[in-house]
């Protein structure tokens, strides 16, 4: 209620978590982790992303507004490495601790902002690439269906994958197509690549909607299980697909941990303690073989 929020502000207990968007499963898990931690630590948490996915301008507006409201701390998944720098510096000036999550921001963690809690995207891309090399036995043709123009984290994954794939001797058939923001667009983009997909031996998708769209397209083209498909992130249909052998591997991040750590860091910073400046929340390669192991199964839920 209202009076509670006043007190929270007065006590320096209100923190905000600003994701890149709100409609992907990934951010849902970040929110869940953050909320658990906030409840445990007695903080009041607001979770608010830009209205339109991938809109730098509205994300900046949000950050500015929360700085204006003098919240006690901000956890931010920046849509852009540079665009949000001024806001983060402004928060620092006002004495509001900022924890950057998920994607990098220009500047030095520990100096320009308090800490950086994220998956190492390039590394996770390489992980996927190495798995693909393994699946294809060191030779073959692959297709990369990119996510969206200008999205830094997925670009890093795509580059990581390409590096590892080329190093492993794979042929890259297509790497200049972008899927678009939604599953529907991804499916259509994938279907338009039908011939390339048929010629390819393996396919990489850098995030959940693309992977989901690719599974749907494979289903339609009758390619499910015939090609090696390495995707990213977990959602119920993808986990089912992994179990059925329709997807060979999923690189799964640890969004709950990311959210939890972000909030714990903020609490520590509000209390004046010190925190690790860079934390890799890690990622795991989930396959049919290991998906029931508790440490993997936890991430797939």
């Amino acid at each position: 209620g209202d009076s509670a929020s006043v007190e929270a502000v007065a006590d320096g207990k209100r923190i905000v978590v600003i994701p890149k968007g709100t409609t992907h499963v990934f951010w849902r898990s970040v929110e869940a982790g953050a909320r658990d931690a906030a409840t445990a630590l007695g903080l009041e948490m607001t979770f608010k992303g830009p209205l339109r996915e991938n809109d730098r301008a509205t994300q900046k507006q949000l950050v500015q507004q929360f700085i204006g409201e003098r919240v006690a701390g901000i956890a931010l998944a920046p849509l852009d490495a540079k665009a949000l720098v001024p806001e983060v510096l402004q928060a620092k000036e006002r004495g509001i601790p900022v924890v950057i999550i998920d994607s990098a921001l220009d500047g030095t963690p520990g100096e320009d902002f308090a800490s950086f809690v994220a998956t190492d995207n390039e590394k996770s891309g390489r992980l996927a690439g190495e798995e693909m090399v393994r699946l294809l036995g060191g030779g073959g043709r692959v297709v990369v269906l990119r996510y969206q123009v200008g999205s830094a984290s997925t670009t890093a994954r795509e580059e990581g994958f390409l590096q590892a794939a080329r190093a492993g001797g794979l042929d890259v058939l297509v790497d200049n197509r972008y899927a678009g923001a939604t599953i529907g667009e991804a499916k259509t983009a994938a279907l338009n690549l039908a011939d390339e997909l048929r010629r390819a031996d393996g396919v990489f998708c850098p995030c959940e909607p693309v992977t989901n769209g690719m599974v749907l397209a494979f289903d339609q083209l009758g390619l499910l299980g015939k090609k090696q498909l390495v995707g990213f992130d977990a959602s119920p249909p993808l986990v089912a697909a992994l179990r059925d052998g329709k997807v060979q591997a999923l690189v799964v991040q640890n969004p709950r941990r990311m959210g939890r750590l972000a909030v714990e860091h903020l609490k520590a910073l509000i209390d004046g303690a010190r925190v690790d400046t860079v934390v890799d929340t890690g990622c795991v390669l989930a396959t049919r073989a290991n998906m029931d192991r508790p440490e993997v199964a936890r991430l797939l839920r």
Partner: protein
Amino acid sequence: MNLAKALRASGPLLGLAAVWGLFAVLAPHGNFTSWANTELMLLQTAVVGTAAVGATWIIVSGGIDLSVGANIALSAMVGALVLRDGHGFWWAALATVCTGALVGWLIGALVVGALPRVVLTVGFATAVVWAAHGMGSLWAGCFALACGALVWRWSARIRWSLPLSPFIVTLGLWGALRGAAKGLGNNQPIYPERDETLLSLMKPGGSLPPGVWVLLAVALVASLLLRRSVFGRHVTALGSSRETARLCGVDLQRTELGVYVLACTCAGIAALLQLSYLSMGDPTTGQGYELKAIAAAVIGGASLAGGEGSIFGAVLGALIMTVVDNGCTKLQFDNWVQEIVTGGIIVAAVALDRWRHSREVSRAARRVP
């Protein structure tokens, strides 16, 4: 006379042939012309094509609908919800199409000026859904629908009317319906159980997928209604000159409401196809479909001033855009090149049509002594 008419109707067909021929020549090795690829393109046209049929009706009536993308997302979410709750394909299909039609009623009622009645009805129905949502989404929805209908009937005595421009109404709903779609799924897609009937709608197979037949059937019925029924002629008159239609005893309110319900029923059917295409309800789907549907209608010969438009032209217009997307991929153009080419082709298609139109008129002039 009939030859001239046929020629005029064939405008978009010529455009399609031109674009298709171009890509067939440029991409000879990408089996662009294969049956499998053709089938794929038809399949990918089904959703936007069906929406474009509705858009054409609205444009002929002199209106516009900017909310069709959001409407598709919302209707598909409702269908996915009903499916997830285990009511089976037919209930889900009904719910999807009905949601589309309901949105049409909402737009139409706001456009004709029944704002107070709409606020009452929607407010009441929302409250009922809220109170009754323990019954399960389908039954709560049906119950709310019944109660809403009662309130709507009862409130007919409220005579205060405030007509709004459809551009504004649907611009508002463009955001609001998408918000509702996101809220319905709690910001997440809804993943129903796998349903074979649903999936088979949009699955390419031996012959044409059922989704394409649905598109053709919708287009045929809509076209017949528009040209041959009294309602259709009234809609054309409305778009051609509102004042004249009123003087001639066309019931403007009922006709306009009818147009939006009918057109948004098409959007509901498109939503069903989209649900089948994605096999899930995605609240972010269909962004930009509103402009695609309008572009298809206009490429097909509709005039945004109202009174003019061809249903099959609109379907061909939608197909042209699919062909461009597909062909650009076959040619391995970069995405940005594809966007430029698509934009150029929209302008070129319309320019071609206008040019043919003007030529035809001057030729007709020369033919007569």
